[in-house]
């Protein structure tokens, strides 16, 4: 008793509204991520939707089940049904959840493998990404296809050598260093992600990829964008005061534009 009816009804209503609103917002694509621009991104979205359905179902059943239980079994003077459990039921729901969860994990493993574990095509364009407080630098190897040696002692942004490229290494003479990332469409790209100071990150939501930039390591990341456009690159790893201002752009351009970009950059 003790005011059961009101509380029970309120809880039932509140949980139903919670479920209804949540379904409504997800169904209408409220602040959905913009569409992906890589085949891997499409797969990741597919996996996301699958997970949304599975967990969505669990969410609806659990919340409504809770609302129903408190409403239906509020104290109306009835005796409580004495039971200590039900082994069959318990084993059944353990198995069902295990199957659902591990099944999702198995499917997700495939999209993960596609984004991180596949071999890089030999013709991939390699670009080195160097992050520092609070900017990105992108280095293209230039016509010789080789990155020059880097020496931290030589790093000096004011004199125009933010990466510390060794002038005595011939491979480095033609290296191009720019502050935005330009890549041709439909061509495999491999980024080599590094950091000069603290841990940063490389995140483009349209690529459905993010990767930390860890000082002392060079982490590869590959993708093949299939849509032209300009996309934000943001840093998602707390890196200091300017963390929230640390961003750059990914320009996916046509082959012709890409060649033009290279020639212009080499000329400089």
């Amino acid at each position: 008793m003790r005011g059961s009816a009101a509380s029970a009804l309120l809880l039932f209503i509140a949980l139903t509204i919670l479920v209804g609103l949540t379904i409504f917002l997800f169904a209408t694509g409220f602040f959905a991520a913009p569409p992906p621009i890589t085949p891997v991104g499409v797969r990741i979205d597919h996996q996301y939707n699958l997970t949304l359905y599975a967990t969505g179902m669990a969410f609806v059943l659990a919340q409504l089940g809770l609302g129903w239980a408190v409403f239906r079994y509020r104290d109306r003077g009835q005796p409580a049904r004495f039971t200590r459990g039900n082994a069959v039921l318990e084993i059944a729901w353990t198995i069902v959840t295990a199957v659902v969860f591990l099944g999702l994990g198995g499917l997700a493993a495939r999209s993960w493998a596609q984004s991180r574990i596949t071999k890089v095509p030999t013709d991939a364009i390699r670009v080195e990404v160097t992050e520092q407080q609070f900017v990105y630098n992108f280095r293209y190897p230039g016509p010789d296809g080789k990155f020059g040696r880097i020496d931290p002692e030589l790093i000096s942004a004011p004199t125009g050598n933010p990466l510390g490229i060794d002038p005595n290494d011939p491979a480095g003479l033609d290296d191009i260093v720019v502050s935005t990332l330009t890549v041709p469409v439909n061509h495999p790209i491999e980024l080599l992600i590094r950091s000069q100071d603290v841990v940063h990150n490389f995140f483009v939501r349209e690529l459905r990829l993010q990767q930390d930039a860890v000082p002392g390591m060079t982490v590869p990341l590959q993708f093949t964008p299939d849509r032209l456009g300009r996309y934000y690159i943001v840093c998602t790893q707390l890196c200091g005061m300017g963390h929230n201002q640390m961003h750059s752009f990914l320009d996916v351009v046509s082959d012709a534009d890409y060649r033009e970009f290279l020639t212009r950059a080499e000329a400089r």
Partner: protein
Amino acid sequence: MNPLPDHVHPAVASPSGFFRRYVFSTDHKVIGLQYYFLALAAVTIGIVLSLLMRVHLAWPQAHWPLVTGGTLRPEQYLALMTMHGTIMVFFVLTTAPLGAFGNYFLPIQIGAPDMAFPRINMLSFWFTLAAFLCMLAAFAVPGGAPISGWTAYPPLSGLGSVTGPGEGMGQTMWIVSIGIFCIASLLASINFITTTIEMRAPGMNLTRMPLTVWAWFVTAVMSLLSFGALLAALIMLVLDRSAGTSFFTPAGLVVNGELQSGYSGGWPLLWEHLFWFFGHPEVYIAILPGMGVTSHVISNFSRKPVFGYRAMAATLCAIGILGFLLWGHHMFVSGMNPYSSLAFSALTLSIGVPSAVKTFNWLGTMWGGKIQFDTPMLFSIGFVSFFVTGGLSGIFLAQPALDNLLHATYYVVAHFHLVMGVAAIFGIFSATYYWFPKMFGRMMDETLGKLHFWLTFVGAYCIFMPMHFMGIYGGIRRYADWTGATYLAALQPLHLFATIAALVTAAAQLIFFYNFVSSLTRGEKAAENPWRATTLEWSTASPPPVDNFAGAFPTVYRGPYEYSVPGAPQDFTPQHLPPELAGVSEGATHA
């Protein structure tokens, strides 16, 4: 009614003197209350910090009184955020559920007069308090509080003030404080574990322990095994900062144009592994006691035995074990070997299974019950709801492919606030309303309690649900404001909504504080057993005497949740009633 046997001393003299009794007390109940008030002070500061953050996020250009320059600078925001996370995780959610309630009720629930090592218990509290003061002092040192988040990833946290204000003295204070906290937690967990093993009353075998005791026990084991690792990591971090070692600090770093010489090639991921080896168990340390309380309260107010008691105890243990094997899910995109991500993912998803079993069993306990909606029960129902909502977003994060999109966004912020910032806090609230009569001998006000519940329940959903959408859209966490990338500006209305909800929710906590304080003196006097409950704490006076049972220590005859037993004269059969008085036969063990 036999007279008490001779060899029992009916009452024990209280220690004399105010200081021995209330300050340097070794009584677990006093220590429990000390922890409780420490957590209350900490949560108040934590909430204020979160409100400052929220206001800044909604109105980044707002002019603040007392702030030089008028607007909040990014590093000030990051300092607020770091201290908010740290204070909430360590000084609220590790102290209140285990330190406060565990201390107060674990010995009573197993029929013991005190903890096994009362003086070590007192020491744990004083260390915790010292750690807390040290943490607060970080605000006052030159450069201010640290800005590296509660996770303190090096090299940001490992190089000193070159990496940012707050990374000098402030970060050092942070490390020292957490180091002291580690020692306090280790001492406390030794005490909890030993007490549970050695101090149980006659008849209190494992399958008769209340699920709260199970939860505290598993929690203590987890903190015993995890805080040592954090302490080791902190020592290495301090050495990197001050002695020039390179455990975590790589060679050739150029920070702010300055070459950091002398480092030979440390590995930042080593810190991440050590931190999360502690950090993941830590989040379960925060919530397991809440799960115990929820099981306990739901059974009590549904007037039904816990559905699947053995499964409930087993899943606590399963979560405790699995909790140590999946720290890598915080590092999917850290540059760790991508194959290990798959292993961590599978293990992370497996921990969803015992969690789901618990959820189903809570529903099973209510199903067919006779539910009474007193405030403790409302908060436990809220716990279940928030745990489901927050836990299910964990299923997204547990898949490395999806973590590609969701890592370090507000989706994660939504996830962990729902499970930790709300569900676990609801566990504390449930425990507070439930045990207040026992602790203070008076009832809390029901009407205010219900009002508090409803405002907090609705308010917390309003604060944290929108954050999922921010995250999916690409809203990055730990951003002082969203003026960087222009697409983030679209999310500003959601920020505004969350901020208003946070202000309302925080204001609603004033109702709680008022209710708490006024009930201390004006609450209706509580009987021994106001909730008609079965466990041992309800067999003694409210508040309990110094040795908990006035010399008349109980013997235990049955399981902890004997509600509505067919044939019993009343709908609850206390654990300590001898069979001839209980009207039902002894021992009925659990299914």
